[in-house]
């Protein structure tokens, strides 16, 4: 794997967990300031001159939920086009200006936010922020540029159209969220992208890119006064208020269900999941901890041990809690050869059921808490990672001193809390999407309860999950 993966392996999975840094006040993560510019732009900020860089991460509320219902992918097209000509610069000049000073500017449309990222060497900050200002306030959307990017978006969608993992994940969201905006493809579809016109793009920018929902985090070698001036210059002239379409809260998934998508691939790909726990709920931390135990990273989650280590069924098996503004899910992925696909799904279901019924052991809970307390520091090591974490805390509506509170919140999760959370998360069975050539799975009808997914009644505690001796953790 390339380094991009290494990075993920090393640093991934840790946006929530926070280090116990109270005892180490010298580290950057403990010097977070709330900076408010003269123009009223607020940012969470860490001044750090170790490396001559500045990293900024920011988000506007809305994201892909603000795409028109019949045109998913508008936000994504906007994200791909803001740096294709803006202000008095055509796209070539705009890129020339970025490249000449190695300024890294990018935008992303996520389901709940339109996000941006800006990195620069500190000496190039005026140019970098000025280019960002142009991109946000006066993007061109010239027809040739729109067509050029549209072609690239479509090429990518065509590639994805036979990628089993992409198909499984899309179908999972579609079934889990039905007619809610979360069911739509943030990147658009081969049907929707050709329909998007310049007016859609301009309308999206007008409605979404505004000051009232903006959250900003900055880490790097810049003083607060200079930063405040740059923030005012960059964001100050944006409209005061966004005009967002209301998005309803939604409870994901009516599990158990199994959906099968036929595709002629040697490895059957499986996405499974169900309703999760939202960030604001009291059960959240317990749910976060039990997800780490069942399917978290590292090399010793229950699913990893049972599916991969003991049975050699899969290379990758992983499950995690994902929370959004209006819902939450847990979701996992694995892949296995076609003739063992049913066995693999059954094993996943068995482990999920067992966790729902018995909860984790004291030792597992203890290990997971220890991991979650320790891992946070690892997520805060680069300027960009720290900035991303500080943005996420704001989006999650956490206090600015959350870093110091995190360990206590993790520690407060009791075995009883963990059991309750496990029961809540996994007591309903799974929504499972399989993509592959499994003949057995092929006999299952779409979106109906499957033989290997017991109906809800069978998944209640009391039905012995299996005769297998429970693995003794550690």
């Amino acid at each position, binding site marked *: 794997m390339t*380094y991009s993966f290494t990075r993920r392996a090393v640093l991934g*999975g840790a946006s929530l967990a926070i280090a116990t840094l109270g005892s180490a006040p010298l580290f950057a993560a403990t010097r977070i300031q709330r900076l408010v510019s003269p123009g009223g732009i607020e940012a969470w900020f860490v001044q750090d001159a170790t490396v001559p860089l500045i990293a900024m991460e920011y988000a506007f509320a809305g994201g892909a939920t603000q795409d028109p219902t019949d045109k998913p992918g508008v936000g994504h097209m906007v994200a791909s086009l803001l740096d294709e000509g803006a202000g008095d610069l055509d796209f070539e000049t705009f890129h020339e200006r970025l490249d*000449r000073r190695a300024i890294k500017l990018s935008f992303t449309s996520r389901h709940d936010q339109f996000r941006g990222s800006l990195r620069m060497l500190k000496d190039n900050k005026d140019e970098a922020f000025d280019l960002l200002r142009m991109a946000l306030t006066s993007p061109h959307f010239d027809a040739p540029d729109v067509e050029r990017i549209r072609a690239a978006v479509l*090429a990518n969608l065509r590639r994805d159209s036979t990628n089993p993992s992409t198909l499984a994940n899309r179908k999972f969201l579609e079934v889990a969220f039905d007619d809610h905006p979360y069911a739509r493809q943030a990147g658009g579809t081969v049907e929707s992208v050709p329909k998007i016109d310049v007016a859609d793009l301009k309308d999206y920018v007008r409605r979404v890119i505004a000051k009232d929902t903006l959250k900003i985090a900055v880490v790097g070698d810049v003083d607060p006064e200079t930063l405040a001036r740059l923030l005012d210059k960059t964001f100050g002239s944006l409209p005061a208020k966004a005009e967002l379409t209301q998005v309803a809260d939604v409870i994901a998934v009516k599990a158990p269900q199994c959906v099968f998508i036929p595709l002629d691939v040697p490895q059957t790909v499986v996405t499974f999941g169900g309703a999760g726990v939202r960030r604001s709920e009291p059960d959240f931390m317990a749910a976060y901890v039990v997800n780490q135990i069942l399917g978290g990273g590292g090399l010793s989650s229950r699913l990893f041990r049972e599916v991969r280590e003991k049975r050699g069924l899969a290379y990758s098996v992983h499950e995690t809690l*994902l929370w959004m503004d209006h819902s939450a899910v847990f979701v996992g992925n694995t892949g*296995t050869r076609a003739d063992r696909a049913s066995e693999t799904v059954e094993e996943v279901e068995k482990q999920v059921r067992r966790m729902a019924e018995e909860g984790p052991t004291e030792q597992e809970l203890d290990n997971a808490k220890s991991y979650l307390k320790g891992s946070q520091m690892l997520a805060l090591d680069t300027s960009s990672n720290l900035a991303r974490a500080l943005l996420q805390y704001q989006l999650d509506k956490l206090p600015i001193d959350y870093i110091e509170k995190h360990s206590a919140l993790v520690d407060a999760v009791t075995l009883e809390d963990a059991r309750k959370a496990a029961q809540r998360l996994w007591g309903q069975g799974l929504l499972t999407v399989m993509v592959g050539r499994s003949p057995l799975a092929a006999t299952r009808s779409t979106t109906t309860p499957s033989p290997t997914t017991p109906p809800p009644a069978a998944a209640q505690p009391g039905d012995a999950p299996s005769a297998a001796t429970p693995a003794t953790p550690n």
Partner: protein
Amino acid sequence: MTTKVLGAATVAMALTTPTALAVEYKVEYKKDNSSNPSLWDVPEKRNVLTQITVTSERPASFTLANGLQVVVIPDHRTPIVTQMIWYKVGSADDAPGKSGLAHFFEHLMFKGTAKHPPGEFSRTVLRVGGKQNAITSMDYTSYFQRVPREQLARMMELEADRMTGLILKDENVLSERDVVLEEFNKSVANNPDRRFTEQIRAALYLNHPYGRPNLGWRQELEKLDREDALAFYKRFYAPNNAILIIAGDVDPKEIRPMVEKNFGDIPAQPAIPAKRVRPQEPTPAAPRTVTLSDPRVEQPTWRRSYLVPSSSTAAAGESPALDVLAQVMGGGTNSYLYRVLVIDKQLAISTGASYHGTSLDPSQFMISATPKPGVHFVEIEDAIDKVIADLAQNPARAEDLERVKTQLIAQAIYAQDDQVMLAVLYGRGLTTGLSVDDIRSWPDSIRAVTAEQVRKAAQGWLDKKRSVTGYLIKESAPKCEEKRS
């Protein structure tokens, strides 16, 4: 390269944090997306990986009596340390008939020792909030842990223990082989683009083992067993075939006694030669073409690979010139390829070029393009050949050269922000024949590249006889007339 754990779930794959909704969407359209960079079967897709810090201090480096080389890269911003051990053995060192063994063995290094039973190492890392993984490339195998700094001694003890103390049982080995076969299914069999890459590589290297896939050929992989693994272990895993890199919040002075204590008593393996010698390529004589058709290909891809020198095999100045050439030709919207193929002639949707300098033996220079619907490969190919001819005949414009060099050098500064990246850069470089000074002086060598050197690199190395041109097409379209003679 391949890794022990592809833990990142595919739904969560796109996430930079686990908090965002599944399947967020971010694609970089200004460069060619025909291949997922993480699936390229070669060490460096991105030039950033060949960069190194410009202004930071020289890392401390020393060698134990048993031959273990140690490099220490201080970074005191966070109380974290990264330990990476790099073995100078990779897929290209697999014996004929045993392809995939280096990578398979990497998985088996997690199976426990007499002192530390299976799972203990992983649990120890997790208990402290750490991360660990491993990487196998053509030239090296690397294992790393990232932990709070006070855990370093414990990590070092565990890593030293498994250098020679591994215990392999048939049941472990065989079930792990199933895991690796699933890794093969996931990364290769399910992925036409990756298979395409493998076929091009196999056609490019007529004699050198770089022609074999990193994960191995399936029919060989499925026969590997415990005896193969143990023989491989005895032959290659020894202190005189390893480099230990410690990056993070440490004092270099404390590291030496810790390393002596943990690794000092492990004997060197005298049979390991000081320099790896592999079968080399003959002088290339004929351009080759590869057409891979697969029913799952919904978007055709054009690609070409040239056999070119690596940093280790190139004459002075040649490798940085190739770095600059790749960037001038294929880096971003201001590159020659993008301007000509995407903007002016509107033949392609995206274009790219890359050079993989960090390699023990001769490497590849790759060019790729995604044709617009209805455009034939022959049109793409003619246009690309004209761009190459232009670069071989005329010096690059000064402003292009300056922009590209600035970007490449800036990456070295960005790399300073990331201790793991620094550790990887040193590990890659040192296991592929470079010295600490070579790695440190990379930005200066980029700065020194002249327009004439770039022209010469294009002229000298981008010779069709040295190349394989590949066409990835949908199977249902027989005779994709695009195939070019």
